[in-house]
C-alpha cells in the first residue's frame, strides 16, 4: 500500500500489478495552501524571476515582452496557489511562460545583443581569421539569433546563466540527453555560420 506522506505528488508508472501498469499519486495535505502567502510567493519570485526572464528573452528576443510574461506567469501561479505544491512551482512557471510565448506573434528578426564582461574581454585571445573583436561579436550574435529556438534557449541558459544541463532539463521538462544534443548542435551551427561569413569576406 502506498501511503507515504513524505512525498507530495509522485507519479510512478513502473509498478506492475497483474497486467496493469498502475499510476501512483500522493497528496500531502501538510503543504496545502503553502504558496498562497505573500512571503511564499515573494520568495519564489526572488528565486526564479530573473532566470525565467532570461529564458523568455532567449526565446522571444524581446526584453519588454519577457518582463511582461514573467509577471503573467506569477499571476497564474498565484491563481492556482492552492493546487500547486512548492516543489512543482518552478516547472509550473516555465510551462505557463512557454505556453504563453507560443501564442505570441513572431516579431521581426532583430539581432540579439549581449554585453561583455570586462575581465573576460581582456583575456580574450585573438579570434580566428583575424577579425576585430567587435566584428566577430556581431557575427556571433547574428548566428545565435538565427539558431533554432530550442538550441538557442539551451545554449544561452548554459553560457549566460551558467545553468548545468540537468538544471536546464528540469526547467524545460526535457531529458538531459536532449539538452546535450541541442547544446552540441548549437555549437556546430555557430561554427558553421562563422566560417561561412569568414569565407564571404
Amino acid at each position, binding site marked *: *500500500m*502506498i*501511503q507515504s506522506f513524505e512525498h507530495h*505528488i509522485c*507519479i510512478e508508472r513502473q509498478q506492475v*500489478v497483474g497486467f*496493469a501498469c*498502475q*499510476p*501512483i*499519486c*500522493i*497528496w500531502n*495535505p501538510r503543504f*496545502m*495552501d*503553502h504558496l*498562497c*502567502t*505573500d*512571503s*511564499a510567493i515573494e520568495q519564489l*519570485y*526572488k528565486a526564479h*524571476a*530573473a532566470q525565467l*526572464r532570461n529564458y523568455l*528573452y532567449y526565446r522571444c528576443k524581446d526584453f519588454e515582452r519577457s*518582463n511582461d510574461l514573467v*509577471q503573467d506567469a*506569477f*499571476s497564474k501561479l*498565484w491563481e492556482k496557489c*492552492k*493546487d500547486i505544491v512548492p516543489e512543482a512551482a518552478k516547472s509550473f512557471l516555465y510551462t505557463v511562460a512557454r505556453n504563453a510565448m507560443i501564442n505570441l506573434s513572431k516579431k521581426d528578426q532583430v539581432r540579439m545583443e*549581449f554585453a*561583455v*564582461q570586462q575581465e*573576460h574581454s581582456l583575456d*580574450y*585571445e585573438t579570434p580566428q581569421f583575424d577579425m576585430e573583436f567587435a566584428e566577430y*561579436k556581431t557575427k*556571433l550574435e547574428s548566428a545565435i539569433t538565427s539558431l533554432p529556438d530550442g538550441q538557442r534557449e539551451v*545554449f*544561452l541558459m*548554459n*553560457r*549566460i546563466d551558467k545553468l*548545468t*544541463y540537468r538544471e536546464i532539463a528540469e526547467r524545460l521538462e526535457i531529458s538531459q*540527453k536532449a539538452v*546535450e*544534443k541541442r*547544446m*552540441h*548542435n548549437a*555549437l*556546430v551551427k*555557430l*561554427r558553421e555560420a562563422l566560417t561561412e561569413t569568414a569565407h564571404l569576406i
Partner: protein
Amino acid sequence: MNTWKTDDTFLARWLAGELSDEERQAFEESEEFAQFKDISQTTAAFQVPAFDADAGFDAWKKNRVLPRENVEQPSETKANVNALSRIQRFALVASIIVSALVGAYLIQGTTSSIVEYQTGIGEQTQLILPDGSEVILNANSKLTYDEKMWDKVRSLSLTGEAFFKVASGDQFEVNTPIGSVSVIGTEFNVKYRDSFFDASCYEGTVAVRIGAENNVLTAGQEITFQRGKKIEQRSFQQTATPGWSTGIVNLTEVPLAVVFSELEAQFGVIVTSAIPEGLIYTGSFPTNNVESAIRLVMEPFGFTYQYNPQTQQLTFNTP
C-alpha cells in the same frame, strides 16, 4: 573514438569538462578546435541586463488580483484556522443530522424502530451506537439498524463507507449487499461502493463472509471483492483511523469506476464520459479540494479532462 563529428553530445560534454583525456587531447589537436574555443570563451563572457527582482515583485504585488479565499496571513496560522473551521463545520453538520434523526425517530418511534443515518455529498458524521460503539460515517453513505433488536443482535446495514470502533460484547455484524463483516470487539473499516467491497481490520480480528466464503482478517489486513469475486487479501499501512476521516481518501488498486464513485461521494462530481474498463488506480486525494482531487486522479492516467464547477460535470478523453 568519439569526435564532435560522430557523437551528437560531444561538444556539450567538452564544455562541461566531461571528455576523457584521450577525447580531449584529440579534439584540441583538431583544426576546428580554435573556433569552438573562441565561441565558448566569448559566449561565457556574454551578459544580459540584470533583472530587478525587487522592483519586479513590488510591481507584480501592486497589480495582482487576489484570488478567491486567499487570506493574507502566514501559512501555519492559516492552516490552523482552516482546521478549526473544518472541525466546526463537521460538528455543525453532525449535530444537524443527529437532531434531524432524533426528530424523525420521535415522530416515527411508535411505528418503526429502524434507525437510519445518512450523509450527503462531502459530509461525514460521527455517531455512537446504543452499546457505546463508535462509528465514523463517510460521505454519501447510509447506515441503518433496528433499535428494538439491538440488544439481541448487533447488526447494521451499510452502503458507502464507515469506520467502526466496536465496544466489547457479543457478535457485531455489518452487512452490505455483497458481503458481511462480523467481529467481537475490534476496529475496522467497511466500504461498499459501485459493487466494490473492501474491509480493513484495524484492531483485533474480523470475519468477512462473501456468499459461502469466509475470510479471517487480523489487524493490518484488508480484503477486497468486486462483483462477489475476491480480488486480494493483503496488508495495509495502518493509521489510527482511515485516511478519509482525516481529510485524505486513500485508494489502493481499485477500479477506476470506484474512484469516480468516491469523487461523487466527496464532491458530487458527475462523470459524463464512458469509464474505460480495466484501469486500476492507486493514490490519494484531499477531501476539501475538488480540483486537486480530480487532477490527482486524471493526471496519472494521462487523461485530458474538463471540469465544470457549476454543473459539477467531469468529461475526459483517454490518451
